[in-house]
């Protein structure tokens, strides 16, 4: 057994990593990511096992149930590669051990992948890109696409390599505090940024007018007394810059009053209402449609 040791080269591992991009392609209600998992492992299986029975056994072993966050599957793949390599070289690694590692890792790792990628990184990078895109700036989409894919591919490749080198020892790390720390930092930062996004990007404007106050002379720009032509425009802009109002009557809407209290208070309350509804098992789709109805009705009656 010692004379011909098979091992996976870097290009084999890169091939597996590239294929794991398609992990979720055959996601199904029965065994979830199993098809994509087997598809990812195929280059490694074909390299490690030369006998047909061994290959068949390996394909079937990797068509078992599997489901986790698509990116954090990479360290699991790395560990599995290491185990399969040992097995191909004659180490006593049985099916149960391999399936045990897969199932044992997928749960805790999914608990890291979701808050880190879907709740922290994507909202932040997405909001960054979208805020630029709103004004039609091409940098927005490009920034989002490039940053996201660098993070994603870097994470997938390095954690797969990490898992491959650590082998079955990685399970010791998993039980340690590291994963917990990563999840905690992600959810703290996520909450911080989400709160900022609510303040900035949930838009509700109450239009009802609370008061109309006729301003004193000198507090507004007196359009009749401005010089004619470009000079008049210049004078008007200068007066506005020095704090003069554009109109004779100072209009205060309900929104102005709310903003002077706490900016973003209404968006915050709306978010809390949505959270409460979601906890009451109201479908997000129903809430979304409801909000659109409120928007239209509110606009028609002049509230929004």
């Amino acid at each position, binding site marked *: 057994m010692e004379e011909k040791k098979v091992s996976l080269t870097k290009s084999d591992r890169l091939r597996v990593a590239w294929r794991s991009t398609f992990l979720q392609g*055959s996601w199904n*209600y029965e065994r979830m990511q199993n*098809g994509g998992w087997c598809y990812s492992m195929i280059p490694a299986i074909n390299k490690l096992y030369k006998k047909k029975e061994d290959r068949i056994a390996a394909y079937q072993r990797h*068509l078992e149930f599997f489901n986790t966050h698509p990116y954090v599957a990479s360290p699991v793949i790395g560990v599995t590669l290491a185990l399969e390599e040992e097995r191909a070289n004659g180490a006593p690694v049985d099916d149960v051990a391999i399936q045990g590692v897969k199932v044992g890792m997928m749960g805790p790792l999914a608990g890291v992948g979701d808050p880190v990628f879907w709740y922290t990184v*994507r909202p932040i990078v997405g*909001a960054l890109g979208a805020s630029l895109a709103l004004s039609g700036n091409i940098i927005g989409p490009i920034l989002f696409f490039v940053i996201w894919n660098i993070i994603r591919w870097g994470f997938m490749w390095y954690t797969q390599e990490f898992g491959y080198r650590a082998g079955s020892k990685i399970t010791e790390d998993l039980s340690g505090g590291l994963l917990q720390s990563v999840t905690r930092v992600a959810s703290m930062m996520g909450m911080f940024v989400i709160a*900022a996004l609510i303040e900035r990007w949930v838009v509700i404007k109450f239009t009802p007018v609370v008061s109309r106050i006729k301003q004193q002379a000198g507090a507004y720009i007196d359009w009749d007394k401005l010089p004619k032509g470009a000079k008049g425009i210049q004078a008007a802009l200068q007066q506005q810059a020095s704090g003069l109002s554009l109109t004779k009557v100072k209009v205060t809407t309900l929104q102005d009053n709310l903003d002077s209290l706490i*900016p973003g208070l209404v968006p915050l309350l709306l978010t809390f209402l949505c959270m409460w509804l*979601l906890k009451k098992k109201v479908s997000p789709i129903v809430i979304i449609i409801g*909000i659109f109805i409120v928007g239209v009705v509110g606009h028609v009656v002049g509230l929004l």
Partner: protein
Amino acid sequence: MSAISMILVVIVAFFAGMEGILDEFQFHQPLVSCTLIGLVTGHLTLGIMLGGSLQMIALGWANIGAAVAPDIALAATASAIILIQGGQGTHGLGSAIAFAIPLAVAGLFLTMIVRTITVAIVHFMDAAAAKGNSRMIDFWQMVCICLQGLRIAIPAALLLIIPASSVRDLLGSMPSWLSDGMTIGGGMVVAVGYAMVINMMASREVWPFFAIGFVIAAITDLTLIAIGAIGLSLALMYLELDKGGSGKGNNGGSNNNTGDPLGDILDDY
């Protein structure tokens, strides 16, 4: 719209459909798909603006556990096509976004259908595995991914067949109180995605972070990058202080030894 543009739109839709399930390159996110559709039809700026608005709405949408999020892939692609065929320019943004929401729901059913078909295909994979034929496993995997692509490409093609004048008439017949109201609704609907995310992450220890973030956002001089940096720093400081409290000698030492390589990787991004 020229024939070449139409074909390119369908290709973009196909990619969006694939990514809707793969969730890797993010072609299905409106920021990317709407921009690409705008690019191939010659309305780049319009596409980017729609992408930005829809992205804001869909920021927190992710399929986790029991909470199924609406399907953004179909919503983004279809509303971009409607916006461009409608020919109203930026005035059509509000109604295009309004159309996106029911489409996102319809997309959910299409996803369910494909995922059910895939159950059968996985059994074909089993059969291929029993014969030791890895090529066939590869083939069926590709079939599944293409089915997901078609899930969006076919509706997109159907939308393109509808003559642009009909789309224009439909959008034109929408009274302004309706489209304005929809735009206002679009501004509020963003909250739903955030609420979903908060519900998943909230615990007692993270609420103070939420409060600080909310207050700090009112300082408009701070960009999102700055806010992100503040958030990350606060979180790391909190973690470090928390660790120090629970005994530095033993705990910290063992953590550093086993945890650093992965920790570095994770910190890197």
